[in-house]
């Protein structure tokens, strides 16, 4: 392999390495120097988890060929403070609760450090702009920006360092904003996520993925790949010893495609090799012949007579239909003075946790097949894997590594099975780290939805009846679809007591990227529709939006849409809090934005105007002081 000699300084130490000339600075830091505080969230310059200082300038190390580092001075998150210590900025992150999953945090700390080094007096807007190249999926940025401003003020002596210490505790630790116990490890870049872990003799896995949305696998030849240098095993569904199939509700997905592929990006075969590049190269050596099948790309088409069938067990392509019936829907509408009808739709949404999927599997000294991964459900994964690899349950062990963001997206066992199989075949630890693109193309999304909603109301604003019909595209496999439909149905008509209901939620198979669990599990899709419609009704009836909600809200003793009697219900309390807290000016929602008196007040930010820090030098300074 060609090599390039690289001499540079990292965190004050001189480093001389012979490297592969195609590597990026990020690769050298993480793989050659084992400095894993710098993360790879996207590999394309779009997220900032890889930010490092090069000769004092902050850059994204995934966009920097390592050769460019020759003769430079590099500073990474590990080098900001002495080992075991934290900088003021890191302590401010700790104090404000700025780290959640922590995966973006080393990069955020670097960006914050850069911002305050460049301008110790940076104002709120400037800090936000300077951090604008770093994505965080967990925190909503608020506590991060708060941390940077706190650090700025402590460094400038405007605030006492005591502001960084824990809040005093009164009579109870419940109700105390105890600082997160995992924060020091996260702000210092010390925490090891699965993709940061290494084991002696470890192999690297790459996955061959389907280029077709729907096709029969006519033949597969892995012999050329097996013969390639560095390759230790190639696995396909034929290597599965037990009952192949996983899923949160139905076990309809094989760990690698079995006879048929059902979506683009589905795993078809996997290679474990001594290094990542060899593993990726070997994928080209796997010859697969496909016979393309007609595909289904729209939920409505899946229900049409004669539609292609994706799974034999579901000839109608329906994964799940949940009906709710309450009261008498016709009578309810008959009693209405106003009937509204509207269609709503929501898109497919990517979880975009900053940590792409990763894991390591090995077979231990007691013959226990062990998988370390950021799985959101190790209990269920262990059950399923034991059946798939045909081992007694106590010989299968799952360890949940720190999860760099999940939001439901790491509940599906989409790669752990392949890792386990490869570890069993090679008796070596095997690691996989997804690329961002691989994560996006192969993992479940939020269910897209199309809802048809009818609402009947009296002149006084009481909802007399509601009909809610939602169709969702579940994609190629069932995953969490069933539960999502159930929760969507349960919550569909909102937090309102409605006597007459007809609700149907249906999810179908298609050849699109699968949909699965995602924070709020169907709840947001339906309530987007219902809450929009409540406002539409309020406009028609001349009612204030808070008022119409109060007239219909569930109260203790109310029957829910599933006829469950509520012991407690706090909608009145939260409506009051939001109305008062936002200084809401009462009135019907009749497009009165331009004339209302409650806008532009406390609790709003200035609209973002980029670059004010460059436009008006002296003015910005004044504002800061």
């Amino acid at each position, binding site marked *: 392999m060609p090599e390039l000699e690289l001499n540079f300084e990292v965190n004050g130490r001189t480093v001389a390495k012979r490297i592969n000339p195609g590597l990026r600075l990020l690769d050298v830091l993480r793989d050659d120097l084992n400095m894993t505080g710098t993360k790879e969230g996207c590999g394309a310059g779009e997220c900032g988890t890889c930010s490092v200082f090069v000769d004092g300038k902050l850059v994204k190390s995934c966009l920097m060929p390592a050769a460019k580092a020759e003769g430079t001075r590099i500073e990474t998150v590990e080098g900001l403070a002495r080992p075991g210590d934290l900088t003021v900025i890191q302590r401010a992150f700790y104090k404000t609760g700025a780290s959640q999953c922590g995966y973006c945090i080393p990069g955020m700390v670097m960006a914050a450090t850069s911002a305050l080094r460049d301008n110790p007096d940076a104002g709120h807007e400037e800090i936000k702009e300077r951090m604008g190249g770093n994505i965080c999926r967990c925190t909503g940025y608020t506590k991060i920006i708060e941390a940077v401003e706190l650090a700025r003020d402590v460094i400038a002596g405007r605030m006492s360092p005591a502001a960084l210490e824990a809040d005093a505790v009164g009579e*109870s630790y419940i109700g105390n904003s105890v600082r997160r116990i995992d924060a020091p490890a996260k702000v210092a870049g010390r925490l090891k996520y699965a993709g940061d872990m290494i084991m002696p003799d470890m192999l690297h896995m790459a996955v061959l993925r389907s280029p077709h949305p729907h096709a029969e696998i006519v033949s597969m030849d892995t012999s050329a790949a097996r013969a390639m240098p560095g390759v230790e095993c190639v696995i396909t569904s034929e290597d599965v010893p037990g009952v192949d199939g996983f899923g949160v509700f139905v076990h309809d997905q094989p760990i690698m495609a079995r006879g048929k592929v059902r979506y683009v990006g589905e795993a078809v075969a996997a290679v474990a090799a001594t290094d990542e590049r060899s593993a990726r190269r070997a994928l080209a050596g796997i010859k697969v012949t496909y016979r393309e099948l007609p595909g289904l790309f729209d939920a409505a088409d899946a229900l049409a007579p004669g539609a292609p069938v994706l799974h034999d067990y579901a000839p109608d392509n329906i994964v799940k239909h949940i009906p709710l019936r309450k009261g008498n829907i016709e009578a309810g509408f008959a009693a209405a003075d106003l009937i509204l009808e509207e269609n709503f739709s929501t898109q497919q949404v990517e979880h975009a946790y900053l940590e792409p999927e990763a894991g390591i599997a090995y077979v231990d000294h007691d013959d226990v097949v062990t998988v370390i991964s950021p799985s959101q459900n190790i209990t269920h994964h262990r059950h399923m894997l034991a059946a798939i690899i045909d081992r007694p349950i106590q010989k299968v062990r799952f360890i949940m590594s720190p999860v760099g963001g999940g939001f439901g997206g790491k509940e599906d066992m989409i790669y752990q099975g392949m890792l386990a199989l490869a570890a069993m075949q090679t008796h070596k630890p095997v690691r996989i780290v997804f690329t961002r693109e691989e994560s996006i193309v192969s993992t479940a999304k939020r269910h897209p939805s199309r809802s048809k909603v009818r609402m009947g109301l009296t002149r006084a604003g009481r909802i007399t009846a509601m009909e809610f019909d939602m169709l969702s595209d579940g994609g190629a496999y069932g995953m969490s679809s069933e539960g999502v439909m159930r929760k969507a149905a349960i919550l569909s008509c909102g937090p309102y007591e409605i006597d007459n209901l007809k609700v149907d939620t249906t999810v179908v198979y298609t050849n699109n990227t699968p949909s699965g669990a995602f924070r709020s599990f169907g709840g947001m899709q339906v309530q987007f529709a219902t809450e929009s419609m409540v406002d539409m009704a309020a406009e028609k009836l001349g009612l204030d939006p808070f008022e119409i909600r109060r007239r219909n809200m569930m109260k203790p003793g109310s029957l829910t849409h599933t006829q469950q009697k509520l012991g407690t219900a706090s909608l009145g309390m939260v409506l009051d809090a939001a109305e008062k807290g936002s200084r809401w000016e009462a009135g019907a929602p009749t497009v009165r934005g*331009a004339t209302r008196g409650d806008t532009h007040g406390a609790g709003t930010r200035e609209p973002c105007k980029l670059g004010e820090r460059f436009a008006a030098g002296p003015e910005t300074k004044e504002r800061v002081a």
Partner: protein
Amino acid sequence: MERTVRGRGVAASWYGIARTATIDRAGAWAELDDGGTAKVVTGVTEIGEGILTLLAQVAAEELGIRPEQVTLGDNDTARSPEAAHAGATRQTYMVGNSIALACREAREKLFAEIAEYWDVEATLLHAFDGILHAEGTNKSMTMAEAVAICKGRGVVPVGSGSFTAHGTGLDPVDGSGAPWQVYVFGTQVAEVEVDTVTGEVQVLGIWAAHDVGRAINPRGIEGQIEGAIVQGLGQALMEDYQTVEGHTTTHGFAKYILPTALDVPEITSFLVEDRDPLSPLGAKGIGEPALVPTAPAIMNAIYDAIGVRITSLPATPEKILQGLKEKRRRNEGIAAE
């Protein structure tokens, strides 16, 4: 019309916590350890929501020590009791309560020994922040001493806890049932500014009121609300995973657009505490529910600003301008009549 217009909108929401249809459950072990510290083992780790800190707080409170003195075991199917899955806004409720129960049992073992040692009623004992005392007496010692005495008497103060939720699944015909043990409610108000030249929407403020039952770590809850709102905002305005004939066209973060620090509103949270009567802690959950009202509150605010009703997410600049154009056409039509 001015180039930019403001508007405000509100949306309410509800959310079910503690699944009962497929019975939810969680287990935990606890041990009061040397030095007045504790080991707590349960099958969870962080997905970022702050659960470890919360569990340390609960354990500390129940055991009378400090959160930093609690060591939490890793989530490992071979080494820790089942706590089931890390999702569904169930961690505080399910795991928090199971840990509270496990810690209570460990504490009771210790209290029984110390009560005998001091010759007082165990019910008089109270421990907080590392100090144990017997109410109405001047007897007091550190938890470190208490553990040493307890062990000296041959007892390791350990406990275990299991917690479940009660209810029923849905009837297959009419869907009736009690699928969740607790429901939480929320309301958010959004203030937006719409640029009528570009169609861009900036969300400038969100006021979020959520019932959390009992706020165990207020700052942690705010963090969950802020994060959820920004995810909701992303879905409301920009995020859109797209495929053409099954092939994704949004491969990476260059095409799949996420909110950055420049897109986020100022967020004001109001934590409403309507205690849950059905569980020892009285806390509910916040992870998922806070995302639910954001998108409709923003859509209602957009309507308030420009009179365009967006019924299909996301509300991209293109849809906003299209909506304005249609509205203008409608108004002209009405004027012509």
